[in-house]
C-alpha cells in the first residue's frame, strides 16, 4: 500500500533542508519577498548557510533585513540560529555592468558598451532585464559555492515566464538576423551598414529617427566578440534552473484575481516543463468554530436582539470568507498537484521585522527544526 501523502508543511521543510536553490514566483502583491525571506530564515535555523536575493522589497522589510540600499553583494544578518542568513537587494544595473566588464576583451570595449545609450536602455528600466539579472545573480552566488541555500524572489512579471526566459532574451537579441546583417560590414570593411541591413533599417529610422538606429548599430558593433560568452552563460543559467536541486515555489493569495493570475503562471511553468515543488497560499482568513456559515447566520437571526447576535453574525462572515477563499484556491491547488499547498494564515500586521518573519516562519514550518 502506498503511504499517505506527506503533510504539506513537511514537503516545504524538506525543500529548505535539501534543495540548493528555491525560486519564489507568482503574481505581484502576494508577499513573495516575505515568503522568500522566511524560507531563507528557516534554512539558517536548520544550520544551512542561506541567502535571500530580494527584488524591490517593501521598505520596512528591507530595513528589517538590514538592506539599506541596492547592492551587488549579500550582507549578513546576525541572529540566534545555527546556520547563516544573508540578504541582498538586487541592483539590476550594476549586476549587468559587471557582467559586461567580465566578458569584455578589454577596458575599451567595456567602456564603449557601458556608455552606449542602447545599452543603458537595456540595463535600466527595460522589462525583462530585472528578471535576467535576478537569474544572473542566482547563478553567480551558486557558482561561488559559499551558500547551501539560495532563495530568489522574482519580480512581478507581466509575462509569467519572464524570469525563466530572461537569460535567453538577450541571446535571442544577439542571435537575431538583423544583428548579423549589421555585423557583416564591420568584419568585411569599416563601412557603416551593408545594403541588406539598410533596406530594413531605413523605414525603421523613418519611424523612430535615425539616432535610435545609430545607437543600436554602435551597440552591436561594440558588443562583437562578447556574445559567445553571454550565450554560454545563459545556457548554464538555464541548466541551473532545470537542475533537480532547484525548486520552484508558487506564491499566491486567495483573492479571485490573484488566483487567476497564479493559475496562469502555474500553467505556463508546466508548459515549460518546470514542476512546481510547492504552492504557498498566503494571507488566508482563519477559521473559527466547527459549524457551517449558514448555521451561525441562522443563530445570529434568532439571537438578533441579544448581544450574541453580532458575535454569531461575525462568525458567519468569517466562515463565509474562509469558505470563499477555499473555493477560489481549489482549482489552483488541483493544478499544481501533487505539489502540496501550504496555507498561511493572515497575520495581524504586515511583516516588517525579524520577529514578524519568524512568526510567519512558524506558520509555514510548524515544529522545531529536526
Amino acid at each position, binding site marked *: 500500500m502506498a503511504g499517505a501523502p506527506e503533510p504539506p508543511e513537511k514537503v516545504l521543510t524538506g525543500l529548505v533542508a535539501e534543495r540548493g536553490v528555491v525560486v519564489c514566483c507568482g503574481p505581484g502583491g502576494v508577499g513573495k519577498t516575505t515568503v522568500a525571506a522566511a524560507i531563507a530564515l528557516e534554512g539558517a535555523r536548520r544550520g544551512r548557510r542561506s541567502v535571500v536575493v530580494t527584488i524591490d522589497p517593501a521598505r520596512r522589510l528591507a530595513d528589517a533585513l538590514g538592506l539599506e540600499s541596492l547592492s551587488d553583494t549579500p550582507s549578513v544578518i546576525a541572529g540566534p540560529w545555527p546556520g547563516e542568513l544573508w540578504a541582498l537587494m538586487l541592483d539590476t544595473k550594476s549586476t549587468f555592468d559587471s557582467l559586461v566588464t567580465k566578458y569584455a576583451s578589454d577596458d575599451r570595449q567595456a567602456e564603449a558598451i557601458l556608455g552606449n545609450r542602447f545599452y543603458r536602455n537595456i540595463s535600466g528600466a527595460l*522589462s525583462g532585464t530585472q528578471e535576467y539579472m535576478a537569474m544572473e545573480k542566482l547563478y553567480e552566488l551558486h557558482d561561488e559555492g559559499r551558500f547551501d541555500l539560495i532563495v530568489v524572489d522574482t519580480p512581478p512579471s507581466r509575462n509569467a515566464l519572464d524570469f525563466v526566459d530572461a537569460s535567453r532574451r538577450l541571446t535571442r537579441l544577439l542571435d537575431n538576423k538583423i544583428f548579423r546583417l549589421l555585423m557583416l560590414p564591420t568584419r568585411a570593411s569599416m563601412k557603416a551598414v551593408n545594403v541588406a541591413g539598410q533596406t530594413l533599417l531605413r523605414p525603421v529610422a523613418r519611424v523612430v529617427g535615425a539616432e535610435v538606429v545609430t545607437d543600436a548599430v554602435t551597440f552591436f558593433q561594440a558588443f562583437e566578440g562578447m556574445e559567445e560568452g553571454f550565450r554560454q552563460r545563459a545556457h548554464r543559467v538555464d541548466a541551473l534552473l532545470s537542475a533537480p536541486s532547484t525548486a520552484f515555489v508558487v506564491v499566491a493569495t486567495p483573492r479571485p*484575481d490573484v488566483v487567476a493570475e497564479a493559475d496562469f503562471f502555474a500553467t505556463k511553468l508546466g508548459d515549460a516543463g518546470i514542476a512546481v515543488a510547492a504552492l504557498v497560499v498566503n494571507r488566508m482568513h482563519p477559521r473559527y468554530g466547527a459549524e457551517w456559515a449558514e448555521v451561525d447566520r441562522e443563530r445570529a437571526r434568532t439571537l438578533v436582539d441579544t448581544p450574541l447576535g453580532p458575535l454569531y453574525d461575525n462568525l458567519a462572515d468569517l466562515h463565509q470568507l474562509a469558505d470563499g477563499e477555499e473555493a477560489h484556491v481549489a482549482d489552483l491547488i488541483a493544478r499544481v498537484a501533487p505539489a502540496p499547498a501550504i496555507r498561511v494564515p493572515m497575520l495581524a500586521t504586515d511583516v516588517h521585522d525579524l520577529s514578524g518573519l519568524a512568526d510567519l516562519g512558524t506558520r509555514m514550518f510548524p515544529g522545531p527544526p529536526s
Partner: protein
Amino acid sequence: MDPRGFCRQSRLVIVAGKGGVGKTTVTAALARLAARLGLSVLIVEVEGKSGLAAAFGADDLTYDESVLCPATAEGWAEVRARTITPDVALLEYLEEHGLKRISRRLMRSGAVDVVATATPGIKDILVLGKVKQLERAGVADLIVLDAPASGHAVRFLMSPRALLDTVDVGPIEAQATEVLDLVTDPARCQVMLVTLPEETPVNEVVETAYALEDQVGTNLGPVVVNGLYPVREGLDVDPEQAAAAADFGLRPGEATALAAAAAFRSRRQELQREQVARLADALALPQLHLPALFDVTMGLPQIDHLADALCAGVEALEDMT
C-alpha cells in the same frame, strides 16, 4: 457629486494599482456604474489576462471589441471590452504609416525587437497611442483602461516622456507628444488609483500618486480603497456572559470561537481605520470605499454590488472643479 457627471468628467479613466488590490474588479464596477447611468462604455485591457471576462461570465477578450455585459434594464447601456496588446498595436501602427508591405518582414527579421529594445517605452506608447485614437474617435462615452500593475503603471504612463527624451524626430515623436497631451489633460483623462486598507499597499499607492503627479503630470481622480470589511459593532462582548444573559446554551468550544473571531475582526477593523486615516493624511485626494465581498463567486451581482458602493461613494463626494 452627481454620479453621471463624475463618469463624464473625462472620457478616459485609467485604473491603476499594485497587483492583487482588485484593480480589475474596480474597472468592472466603474464600467458597470457608467453603463447603468446610460453611458456607453468600453473597457480596454492591456495585459492579456482573463480575470475581467471571467468576472462577467464572458468569453476571453480579443483585439476586436465584444460585448462584456449587455444592457440588463431599460435605459441602461452595455459594457463593451477589448484588448490592446503591443504586438498587434505595433503591426497596426506600421501598416498605418505606409510600411504595410514590409511590416511583417520587419517583425520576422527581429528589426522590431532591436528597435523596441533601443527605444524604451515604445510598446507602451503604441498601446496608449491606440487608446488615444479610440478616445479621439469617440468610440464610447467612457473608456476605462485597466492599467498594468504599478511599478509597471508608472513606467507605462511615463513612456511618452521617456520616449521624448530618446527620440526627437519622426512619427513616433508625434505619437508620444499626442499621448502626453492626452494623459496630462484633466478634461480628457484621469487616473483612478486602487489600494487596500493595509500598510504596504497604502505606502505604495502614496508613492505611485506622487510619481504620477510629479513625473507624468496626470490628473488623479479619487483613490479607491478596496476590500474594506463592513464594520460590525457590538463585538466587544464576553460570549459566556452574553449567553447567560440571553439564557442560551453554548456548545463546547463555541465561546472560544466566538471570542477569537470577534477579536480578529475588531483588530482588522482597527487596522483598517488606521490605514484609511494614514492614507488621508498622506494623500490629499478624496477616497471611495469598496466593501470586501464575502461571496464565494464573482459575477454580475457582485459587480453590481460594488457599482452600488461606488455610486454611493461618488454621491458623497463634494463637487470637484
